[in-house]
Structure formats: structure tokens, C-alpha cells
């Protein structure tokens, strides 16, 4: 169920940003914490390290 819920969240967020080519979302762990991802492109880097942080 968790992957399905994650995909649903992703689709909802994507609906808010129809002009985007790509959307990246950090998902929380079971304990509510989150790790981190770094999104790099166009000479910029964005660190996402909070639950449901998106870029």
C-alpha cells in the first residue's frame, strides 16, 4: 500500500505543477523522519531533506 500511496501523492503534487518536466519528492520513513536527496541540474543543486519536501 505504501508505494501506491506514494504514487498517489506524487500524482497530486504533479497536478499542482503542470508545467514541470520532473518532480522529486522525499517520502518519510515509518518513524516520520526522512533522509535526503540532492537534485542537480542546470548548474544548480537543491537538497531535499524534509518529509514531503519537493523540488
Amino acid at each position, binding site marked *: 500500500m505504501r508505494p501506491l500511496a*506514494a*504514487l498517489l501523492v506524487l500524482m497530486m503534487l504533479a497536478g499542482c505543477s503542470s508545467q514541470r518536466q*520532473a518532480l522529486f519528492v522525499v*517520502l518519510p*520513513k515509518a518513524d516520520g523522519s526522512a533522509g535526503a536527496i*540532492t537534485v*542537480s*541540474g*542546470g548548474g544548480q543543486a537543491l537538497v531535499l531533506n524534509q518529509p514531503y519536501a519537493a523540488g
Partner: protein
Amino acid sequence: MLMLSHLRPGPAAAIAAAIAAFASVALAAGPQIAQVKTVTGDAVIIRGGARVGARVGDAVYEKDTIQTGADGAIGLTFTDNTVMSAGPNSEIDLSEYRFDSSNFNGAMLADMRQGTLTMVSGDIARSSPGAMKVRTPAAIVGVRGTRFAIQVQGSR
């Protein structure tokens, strides 16, 4: 030469499927890197230009491409315990993968052309933060150990 047209549809189809499966395995380069855990709807593995319908339990190799249709979804578990789930209309190349279970070192690069993807990173990201990457047409994601989701819009 085997004349499949002389056989009834059942055996002919079974033989053709067996030949396709054998050819697919023969085209695999290197060790198995993942296994198919779940399949829903239309999901295929493209290996050396050959398309094979994905089934639960199938082996996945470096350089394979995972592709799903409009009603498709697929879940993979890699040898480092990374879990990858792809939703409908997804296309993902498993471009690079190496993992040493003796010291948990390794690297992974997946090229995501389109679709939706969720991942729960495993030992590679845990032991070597940044060694797991997902490349999209617009950006590269470096994974430090987490759960994340990506959606890439595009068309085949």
C-alpha cells in the same frame, strides 16, 4: 529447423516463449542485480533489444530497461535491498549497477526517461551516500539514504 507452424497453438506458444526466455537470459551481461517482486498489467523487460513480459521472480540484469504500459506497474528488489517501484507509462534504464556484499560498497545509476518511480534505498546508499543516482532528462538525483518519488513527464 523447428517448424512451429505445424504445431498446435498451445505447444507452439509455449516453445516460442521458452525460446524468447532463453534468448533473453543469453543476452544478459553480468550477474543478476535484481528480481521482479510484483507485476501489474503491462510490464516488460527489454534486454539486448528483445522485449520479454515481466513475471514475478524474473531476474534483472545491468543494462536492462524496465517499461510499463498505461495499466502497468512493476516492483523490483535489488541485491543491496534497494526497492524500486515503477508506475504506469514508465521507462527506466538500469544503466549501471555494482554491489559488493562483503563490504556493502557499490554504485547504481538508473536513467528514468518518463513515468513515476518510488524507491527505498538499500545498502549502497547507506554505505556510500551519493553512490546511488537517478538521472532524468532535466536533473540528476543523488541519494543519501531515504525514500523518495520521482515523476518525469514525457512521451515515447
